[in-house]
């Protein structure tokens, strides 16, 4: 089975570029150039230098001793939370902003859910002196206020998306409309492995540094570069794509993709696309999609803004359908429990998104001699208000 994108932009039957003609010139320009540019020595040199000295890579692979003891297995945390700006998102934005510069673009747009991608985009735009506009759902602007403040500090314009569920899907719609309206000078930095080809492949490549490092670090620590399990949360699926990438063709490494069940799979308030979705088209890609019988996109729900999306990237649809990855879903409450658990056992406050991956630890049933790598995609600073509310810690 092949898990890499084919020459037409498909992973199995998923992917492609289902876009209106107005976007065709821009997407085509990117498709024709992205691999060539990514392979240029001076591009790689600039990217690697930024990843090392600016982002702070490699991020540690940390053996979580007390957590391991609790689950009676061996758990390593890939510390993407220690990246500059606090999540894996910057691996991608550093890469894409360099791509935008090579293509001569002056104006950067992005969508964001949790605000981590928005902050990571605003950050690299400040670094490069580029104009930055970030679309964010009105609901997410409320629940991820610290990240809105950070984007503003960085000089980005944050534009509320007020249609639909006022979350990530709607912010993405607005960003795409902006791109249609500004086809000449604008580059769209998509924040996950979603959207029309070549975005899913390009973003996966920029995030693949995660599994590249895991391999080397695990080898150094255990003598074996292959864990038994790699676990990551999936909103659109970029941190999971990065953590899985170099293990895709190593079937003995089990890949666990964790989606948000929200209030529960059958509650009507969920974002577990692999369970609730069917093949469809969203944001230019053929993939699994939560939709009505009539093909209208369903409004998803999760406490976690970064997982509150009715689709998954086409790679993940393919991994699901082929059985290469195992999909789990975690409710709001289970994720919150996992937040508290990691915080109190290891002194690390995770992001709500990452907590979904941690909560899956209890469902995997790993043996005492097995090794699990959990991709800790981000830190919980942005979620502190939610945490204080839900754990009733105000005024204590």
């Amino acid at each position: 089975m092949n898990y890499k994108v084919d020459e037409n932009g498909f992973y199995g039957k998923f992917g492609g570029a289902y876009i209106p003609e107005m976007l065709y010139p821009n997407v085509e320009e990117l498709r024709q150039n992205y691999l060539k540019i990514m392979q240029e020595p001076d591009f790689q040199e600039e990217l690697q230098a930024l990843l090392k000295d600016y982002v702070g890579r490699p991020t540690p692979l940390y053996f979580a001793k007390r957590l391991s003891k609790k689950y009676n297995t061996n758990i390593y945390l890939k510390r993407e939370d220690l990246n500059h700006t606090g999540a894996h998102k910057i691996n991608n934005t550093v890469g894409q902003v360099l791509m935008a510069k090579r293509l001569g673009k002056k104006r950067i747009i992005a969508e964001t859910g949790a605000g981590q991608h928005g902050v990571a985009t605003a950050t690299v735009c400040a670094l490069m002196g580029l104009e930055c506009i970030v679309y964010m759902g009105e609901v997410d602007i409320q629940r991820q206020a610290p990240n809105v403040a950070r984007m503003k500090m960085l000089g980005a314009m944050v534009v509320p998306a007020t249609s639909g569920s006022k979350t990530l899907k709607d912010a993405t719609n607005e960003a795409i409309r902006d791109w249609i309206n500004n086809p000449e000078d604008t580059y769209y930095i998509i924040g996950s492995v979603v959207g029309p080809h070549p975005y899913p492949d390009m973003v996966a490549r920029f995030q693949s540094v995660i599994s590249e490092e895991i391999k080397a670090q695990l080898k150094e620590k255990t003598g074996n570069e292959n864990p038994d399990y790699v676990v990551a949360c999936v909103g659109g699926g970029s941190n999971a794509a990065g953590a899985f990438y170099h293990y895709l063709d190593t079937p003995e490494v089990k890949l666990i993709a964790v989606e948000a069940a929200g209030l529960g799979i059958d509650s009507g308030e969920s974002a577990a696309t692999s369970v609730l979705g069917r093949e469809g088209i969203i944001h230019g890609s053929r993939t699994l999609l939560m939709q009505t019988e009539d093909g209208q996109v369903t409004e998803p729900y999760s406490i976690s803004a970064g997982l509150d999306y009715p689709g998954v990237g086409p790679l993940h649809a393919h991994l699901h359908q082929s059985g290469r990855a195992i999909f789990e879903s975690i409710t709001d409450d289970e994720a919150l429990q996992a937040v508290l658990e990691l915080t109190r056992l290891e002194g690390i406050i995770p992001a709500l998104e990452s907590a979904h991956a941690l909560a899956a630890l209890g469902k995997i049933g790993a043996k005492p001699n097995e090794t699990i790598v959990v991709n800790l995609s981000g830190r919980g600073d942005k979620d502190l208000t939610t945490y204080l509310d839900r754990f009733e810690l105000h005024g204590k």
Partner: protein
Amino acid sequence: MENRIKTLFNQKSQELLSVYFTAGYPNLEDTVPIILELEKNGVDLIEIGMPFSDPLADGPTIQQSSTIALRNGMTMPKLFEQLKHIRKYTQIPLVLMGYLNPVMQYGVERFCQEASEIGIDGIILPDLPLSDYVRDYKSLFEQHNLNKIFLISPQTTEQRIREIDSHTNGFIYMVSSASVTGSTNGNAMANTDYFQRVAGMQLQNPGIIGFGIHNRETFTQACNYASGAIIGSAFIKALVQEGSLQHNIQTFIQSIKQEA
């Protein structure tokens, strides 16, 4: 039977007025009355919008009309039911316009079959890629006598326009400027280089200009460069003015067709 779009262009090649509206808006059962009223007022061609929850190429007006239409209960089966006997009442060319996902879920084959039975003449699906159409669906559309109409924009290269032209029958939908539907900031008709360039290409299909055409002035300008123009958002706004549907349609269409 000859396709009605073809018949239309054989009879008339200038100042064609085409109107887009969203099926099921403002009220669920308005679809057929709107079609008949448009014909009565001398409109040449009608695009019936199939509402979608996430219309990527549309501005706020069509987004909102789509949301309301869906809330009113519009679905693909409902629309086909409403249109079932439309050919008893009118021979105006009818085009269905919408996004790929609802059509895909309905089944492209079933969709073409039923559209053709009703007497639909053309289909516009902006997010169906040309390459997929040619590979998977072209023969199906042709078999059902459905014209597949493609969009071009000011950024579309000459080579691609020619490729699109070679796979199109009916007309080419020329998006007026780089924008989603309904934008009236800036003049939709400012990009005269583009209109002249396309006009000079001697394409096999006629062109109709759409997006941002909203009054007699922009309509007339568009007709200087193409066979006609499409009005969408401005018409949808007019529908919900004070007064009856009939009155609003009549007032709006007359304002486009006649000098003030």
